[in-house]
């Protein structure tokens, strides 16, 4: 590995000239006290408000950016009429200012070159960088075919590059958000209801009477309107039932907290089904009308009694019965929440199926207080010639997983490693808007793949770890400085939101649409980019929708009337689900035909050995994965993660609050950085817990480097879901080391 071209460049000696970093730091300095009131008054009068929608997470809340004429951003406030936020942004959205002011941002394009016998990043001009990328892409297309160029993406920059790639002839596209996050539930619900859960989830939490969370930690995950609606549900005295080995924030607000033994959720779900069927608590009319396979289901869960589940889950049978009855009493206004990041143990699609089946039994799909029928406005595609048809793409790459409906990142990564059997050789990557180091488990595989590539481009706003492996790094400007696609996401009512630049891009950063267009033109794809400024595209699209750019600039968000009918099923409706049978499928023929369990079964998963603790990870409302740890405003709230340790464990290992420890997992992988201990009763004695996204090891991230530990680097054991290729990551166990283990510094 030491002679590898893909050597991770940790310290980049940028050589040719320093970069001017005079950032406008209005927010980090106090204003001179003499003039404070005076200046604040005047400044408030002169603040400009520009419409945007947030990119700090996928919820895309529409907001107003308050900036002044000097190009400084003062604050970001939610758009009152936006159904994604109702005028209230979450802490990451409010702290989005920090993304703009962060002086650690990528500032110029960087090209990996050999300087004085050492590989390092050299600052380059956009022309040089783009020409290099275009020539490499052309080269790969000529030698191997455009299919061999892959795109690993996330968010808005991903969309622009997806268009470029499809025009270029490659459909080898994947995003970690599928196989590392919500993929299993989309497949699970798709097989049952014929519809993905989708994003944002169509959960009618504000009207629900009973919210059941299987491991979901709403309140720590900051899905804006879900948190808002959970608060509304609490005001309406809704019952919350949380199933979690840890006392999450949601669990602390629950009437019933089932402190389940990790990895045993399916047993609980099956026992609940048993109780609902056995005690005739399920929605008989709904099931008779809309579901098929009920008898098979009844037969299947016959023996899965609460007593049986007690032995597996350690949840008392009375508690299982009681919560099942509560759920049924509230039905159909009950939500068994599908969760979001559900890639846990490798049988996650089956667990999602179980959750979907439970919802079906309770009759909550398509009912008020359950799941509403979502709708979104379709945005016309800006005219361009049809995309060429590639010989193979993400579907073929993921062919071993019959129920995968999007590109499987891990399969794409595997296809990048040359081997005899590799039918779909990937030779080059463009990584746009995702820090693969913190999203893809099994670091060894990732590094092996990256090492074998002929060429790799990374597009990012910050010098994340993934940039250290690139041949070319392209600095993208933040969402506050650019135009992007019109937001049109599914919701109760369709709405669109505008993103326009509030200020000019800082340093030499550019928007992704510009990068895609420049590359497209260098690749001879002018016809796909028939515009000078993305503003023209948006303006045209808005006109097609019957509005205009001027209008959206004034209001930010526009709502439309539903066209697909009511949000809920009506009594006399004969709704047809998009499944093969047209009904909700409790028994899945599709699965049976391919040899998978047509109705979910419980399988026992590996448990930690003595002295090891299951590594659980989760979210913090102040951060979005590893993306925001360096953001000055958000870093101020939380600069490192803590390791939650049960007091019994702390006693055995003699750990004190505030002590720093290292972690070593079952495969001997050690954490690069120590993590601070928090001794708390909130976590079970067989597990430890930490917030995901810390432990950055790129020194260019001034605030985030070395703070906290990275859970991703400790996830070496991955169980792949046989249905859709999702990577189950919660089967890793760590032991706690109080002394710094001597080791070579992992990269």
């Amino acid at each position: 590995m030491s002679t590898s071209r893909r050597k991770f460049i940790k310290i980049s000696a940028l050589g040719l000239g320093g970069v001017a970093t005079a950032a406008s730091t209005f927010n980090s300095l106090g204003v001179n006290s003499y003039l404070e009131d005076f200046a604040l008054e005047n400044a408030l009068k002169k603040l400009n408000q520009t419409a945007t929608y947030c990119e700090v997470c996928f919820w895309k809340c529409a907001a107003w950016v308050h900036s002044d004429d000097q190009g400084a951003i003062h604050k970001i406030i939610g758009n009152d009429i936006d159904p994604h936020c109702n005028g209230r942004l979450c802490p990451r959205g409010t702290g989005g200012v920090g993304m703009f002011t962060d002086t650690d941002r990528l500032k110029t394009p960087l090209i990996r070159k050999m300087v004085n016998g050492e590989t390092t990043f050299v600052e380059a001009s956009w022309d040089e960088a783009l020409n290099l990328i275009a020539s490499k892409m052309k080269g790969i297309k000529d030698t191997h075919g455009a299919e061999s160029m892959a795109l690993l993406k996330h968010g808005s920059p991903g969309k622009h590059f997806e268009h470029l790639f499809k025009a270029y002839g490659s459909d080898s596209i994947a995003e970690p958000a599928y196989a590392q996050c919500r993929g299993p539930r989309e497949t699970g619900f798709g097989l049952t209801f014929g519809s993905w859960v989708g994003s944002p989830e169509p959960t009618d939490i504000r009207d629900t009477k009973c919210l059941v969370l299987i491991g979901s930690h709403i309140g720590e995950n900051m899905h804006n309107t879900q948190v808002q609606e959970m608060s509304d549900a609490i005001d309406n005295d809704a019952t919350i039932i949380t199933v979690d080995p840890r006392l999450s924030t949601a669990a602390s607000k629950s009437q019933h907290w089932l402190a389940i033994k990790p990895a045993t959720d399916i047993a609980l779900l099956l026992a609940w089904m048993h109780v609902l069927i056995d005690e005739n608590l399920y929605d008989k009319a709904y099931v008779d009308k809309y579901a098929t396979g009920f008898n098979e289901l009844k037969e299947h869960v016959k023996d899965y009694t609460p007593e049986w589940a007690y032995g597996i889950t350690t949840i008392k049978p009375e508690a299982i019965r009681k919560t099942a009855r509560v759920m049924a009493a509230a039905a159909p206004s009950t939500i068994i929440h599908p969760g979001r990041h559900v890639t846990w143990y490798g049988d996650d699609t089956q667990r999602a199926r179980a959750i979907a089946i439970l919802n079906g039994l309770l009759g909550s799909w398509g009912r008020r207080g359950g799941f509403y029928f979502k709708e979104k406005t379709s945005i016309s595609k800006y005219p361009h010639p049809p995309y060429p048809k590639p010989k193979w793409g993400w579907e073929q790459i993921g062919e071993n997983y019959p129920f995968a409906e999007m590109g499987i990142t891990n399969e794409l990564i595997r296809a990048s490693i040359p081997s005899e059997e590799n039918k779909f050789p990937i030779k080059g990557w463009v990584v746009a808007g995702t820090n693969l180091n913190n999203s893809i488990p099994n670091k060894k595989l990732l590094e092996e793949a990256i090492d074998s590539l002929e060429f790799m481009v990374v597009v990012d706003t910050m010098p994340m770890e993934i940039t250290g492996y690139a041949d070319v790094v392209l600095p993208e400007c933040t969402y506050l400085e650019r135009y992007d696609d019109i937001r049109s996401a599914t919701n109760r009512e369709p709405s669109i939101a505008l993103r326009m630049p509030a200020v000019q891009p800082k340093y030499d950063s550019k928007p992704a649409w510009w990068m895609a267009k420049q590359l497209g033109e260098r690749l001879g794809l002018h016809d796909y980019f028939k515009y000078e400024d993305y503003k023209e595209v948006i303006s045209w699209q808005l006109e097609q929708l019957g509005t205009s750019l001027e209008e959206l600039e004034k209001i930010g968000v526009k709502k439309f009337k539903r066209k697909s009918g009511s949000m809920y099923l009506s009594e006399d409706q004969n709704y047809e689900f998009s499944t093969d049978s047209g009904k909700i499928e409790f028994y899945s023929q599709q699965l049976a035909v391919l040899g998978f369990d047509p109705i979910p079964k419980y399988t026992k998963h590996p448990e930690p050995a003595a002295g090891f603790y299951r590594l659980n990870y989760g979210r913090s409302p102040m951060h979005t994965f590893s993306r925001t740890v360096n953001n000055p405003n958000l870093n101020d709230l939380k600069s490192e993660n803590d390791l939650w340790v049960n007091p019994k464990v702390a006693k055995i290992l003699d750990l004190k609050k505030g002590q720093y420890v290292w972690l070593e997992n079952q495969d001997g992988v050690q954490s690069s950085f120590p993590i601070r201990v928090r001794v708390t009763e909130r976590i079970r004695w067989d597990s430890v817990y930490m917030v995901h996204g810390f432990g950055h090891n790129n020194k260019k991230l001034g605030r985030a480097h070395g703070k906290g530990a990275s859970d991703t680097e400790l996830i070496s054991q991955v169980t792949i879901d046989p249905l859709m290729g999702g990577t189950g990551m919660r089967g890793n166990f760590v032991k706690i080391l109080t002394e710094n283990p001597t080791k070579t510094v992992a990269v």
Partner: protein
Amino acid sequence: MRYAMVIDTKKCVGCSDCVVACQTENNVPIGYCRDWITERVEGVYPNIELELRSERCNHCENAPCVRCCPTGASHIIDGGIVLVTDNECIGCGACIESCPYDARFQHPEGYVDKCTFCHHRLEKGELPACVSVCPTKCMYFGDLENPNSEVSQLLRNRKHKTLAPEAGTKPHVYYLI
């Protein structure tokens, strides 16, 4: 007019939006905060109680910080809001020592700073930044002297507490429990 803030701990998730919003609204320097989130855990697994609170200056009626200020920089205005006039503050630190809630801090520019209930926003008819941004809508603000205001009604109908009542400061930030 007696302003008060009421925070529903049953709904607060400790997201710290109030902290960031206050920072961006009031130009609080990074590294300092006018409000913060406190978490309290009691019990033994799995019988645990968790309370999350958003805390700040309590704008006390019997404010020790106003009493001990030698220059009068620390004063109370209409509505019961405790403010510091920065060009009267000498930075002696007495008010910081006198606050049982440790709500004040030394601003890098030398004077003492703390939550002002966003009185510059109140003058325009808006709510304090923290109240207006809270995603769980667990924060309420209003006039206690008006029996029909939201805050008055909440305090009448729900169990509530204040912090360190034994300090005798008569704080005006209430927590619904």
